[in-house]
């Protein structure tokens, strides 16, 4: 009796999973092969499947898939630090013989081998958002992070009147995007002699840790006038910490990205400026470049998707609204 019950539970579990997983249909390869002739299959591999940023990349990729009549296979690791899982996903896509791969690399060195494997299998690889230390990918479709962080530094300088102590909150030491934004911010500070960088603390892409780090920054530097948070969890943590200290609006925060949370915080004055990337374009142009590469058309080696500085003043302009809500509100 017990055994039957256990069997039923296991069956129910698998049935449940089946319902969830097979919704975006992973067709058996036998069925996919004949279909391949008229529809290209593009594997799109983000660094993480949560965070609005990646969901917007997916929307862009899906839009391009629809427009150019290609199937988009969206698969990624849970977290940006899971390099090994991303390698596994890519290897599965290579075994499945997708026509092209569009990917954001979790690590600039760790993915090179699997990319070589794809290229050897004649599958063109396009990197988006985060590139790799290699010439193998056809193109890098991404924000120029150094330029973006420089824009952040100049905006922060404007907000605090070109003078005072500032803090920097990158996210993960060693992650390419984090390092580039750190580098860009520091480079810009050389042209801004009034700004003094007093602390660099990492939020580890965790809201609570970002909050703690910001509190420590304020404690160690009571004269702190502003800080630059290089990604979304850091921005939310910093804003919450400043708010809890009763200093919202006094300590200016410039942050990367534009999630619903961050936009709300810009509106209520907890954040002063957002450096907004264009993840929709990364997904869209990434897939478009992949299709061009498969069809033998030329693709530029570096496609910049640009950044826009969004403040409370320009928030409601139609072009900014379209950038912030590519999927509609």
């Amino acid at each position, binding site marked *: 009796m017990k055994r039957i019950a256990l069997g039923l539970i296991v069956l129910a579990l698998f049935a449940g999973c089946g319902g*969830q997983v097979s919704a975006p249909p992973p067709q058996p390869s036998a069925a996919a092969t004949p279909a391949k002739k008229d529809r290209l299959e593009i594997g799109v591999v983000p660094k993480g*499947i*949560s*965070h*609005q940023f*990646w*969901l917007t990349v997916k929307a862009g990729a899906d839009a391009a898939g629809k427009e150019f009549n290609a199937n988009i296979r969206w698969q990624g690791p*849970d*977290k940006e630090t899971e390099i090994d899982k991303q390698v596994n996903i890519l290897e599965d896509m290579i075994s499945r013989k997708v026509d092209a791969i569009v990917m954001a690399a979790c690590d600039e060195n760790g993915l090179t081998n699997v990319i070589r494997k794809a290229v050897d299998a004649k599958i063109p690889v396009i990197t988006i958002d985060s590139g790799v230390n290699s010439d193998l990918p056809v193109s890098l479709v991404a924000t120029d992070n150094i330029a973006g962080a420089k824009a952040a530094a100049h905006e922060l300088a404007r907000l605090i009147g070109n003078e005072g102590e500032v803090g920097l909150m990158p996210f993960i*030491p060693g992650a390419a995007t984090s390092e580039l934004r750190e580098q860009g911010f520091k480079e810009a500070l050389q042209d801004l002699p009034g700004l003094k960088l*007093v*602390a*660099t*603390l*990492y939020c580890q*892409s*965790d*809201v*609570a840790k970002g*909050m*703690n*780090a910001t*509190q*420590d*920054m304020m*404690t*160690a530097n009571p004269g702190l006038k502003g800080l630059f948070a290089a990604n*979304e*969890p850091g921005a*939310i*943590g910093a804003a*919450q910490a400043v*708010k*809890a*200290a009763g200093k919202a609006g006094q300590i200016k925060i410039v942050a990367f990205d534009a*999630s*619903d*949370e961050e936009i*709300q915080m810009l509106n209520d004055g907890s954040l002063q400026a957002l450096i907004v990337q264009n993840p929709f374009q990364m997904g869209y142009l990434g897939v478009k470049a992949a299709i061009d590469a498969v069809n033998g058309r030329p693709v530029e080696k570096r496609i910049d998707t640009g950044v826009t500085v969004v403040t409370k003043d320009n928030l409601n302009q139609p072009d900014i609204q379209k950038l912030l809500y590519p999927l509609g509100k």
Partner: protein
Amino acid sequence: MRQILARHSPLVILAGLCIVVAVLSPEFRTADNLKSVAYRTAVVGIIATGQILVILTAGIDLSVGSVAALSGVVACTLMKNYALPVPLVIGSGLLTGLACGLLNGFFAAKGRIPPFIVTLGMMMAARGGALLLSGGRQISAISDTFAIIGGMRGWWIPVGITLTIAAVFSVVLTFTRFGRALYAIGGNLNAARLSGIPVDRMRIGAFVLCGMLTGFAGVMLASRTGVASPNAADGGELDAIAACVIGGGSLMGGEGGCVGTLAGALIMNVLVNFCNLKNINPAWQKVLVGALIVILVYYDNLRKRRAGLLKE
């Protein structure tokens, strides 16, 4: 005297560490900073209080980080979509934790699966559940009443809650049949069974309480950060386990307590706080904290052995 010191060595270590850090860093001594360290310890302190109950029985609960995230996501989803009043929001988090704890306990005690495996499964499943339910997004938890338990209206509220929980469970562990049974089970499971302790029920009880405390901590975390994130408390299980062990708990079971565990959680947060205040390179922070954990536990064991408190 020696015995008393050794019995409370986590507190002694905490006091010593605070003195050293206070001398090295004037910023550490400020009232605001001490408050900040106290209230950021609340979440991990509550989770670790649950964890020690399981560790006492020679078990382990690896799912607490994920269960905290899931509970936060469940609670905030309900609050956002159905405008549930705050007590019910907290209740939903507690229930989520309870359900996870019950499953853990049932499979560990009745199913005879090692707790390490059961809770490893729960760790993955609960994280996946949080991702599914939230669609991968952060859920905003902004409501003035809800923000209270996380300390946005007064640092002493989460700190008070944590101290109360630790005090209550200290009493439970020392003076109730259930508490003493947990020590007995961790000391020797078969002997406990033979002496008539309902071992399975007690072990399930430990997992259920651990789950509920974790569920509550998850809600508090969402309240504190203003968002429930499916990725919240990533690695939180290791922080909680480290707090238990630094606080004098033994992964072999039968040793440890709530006061020590809370001291263990504080020790870790004081260390990280110190590194942040001194703007120490994050790579060195990890090396420093990792090394100190091992040294502190070694020192703690040494003292206990000298005082004749440790079974060989």
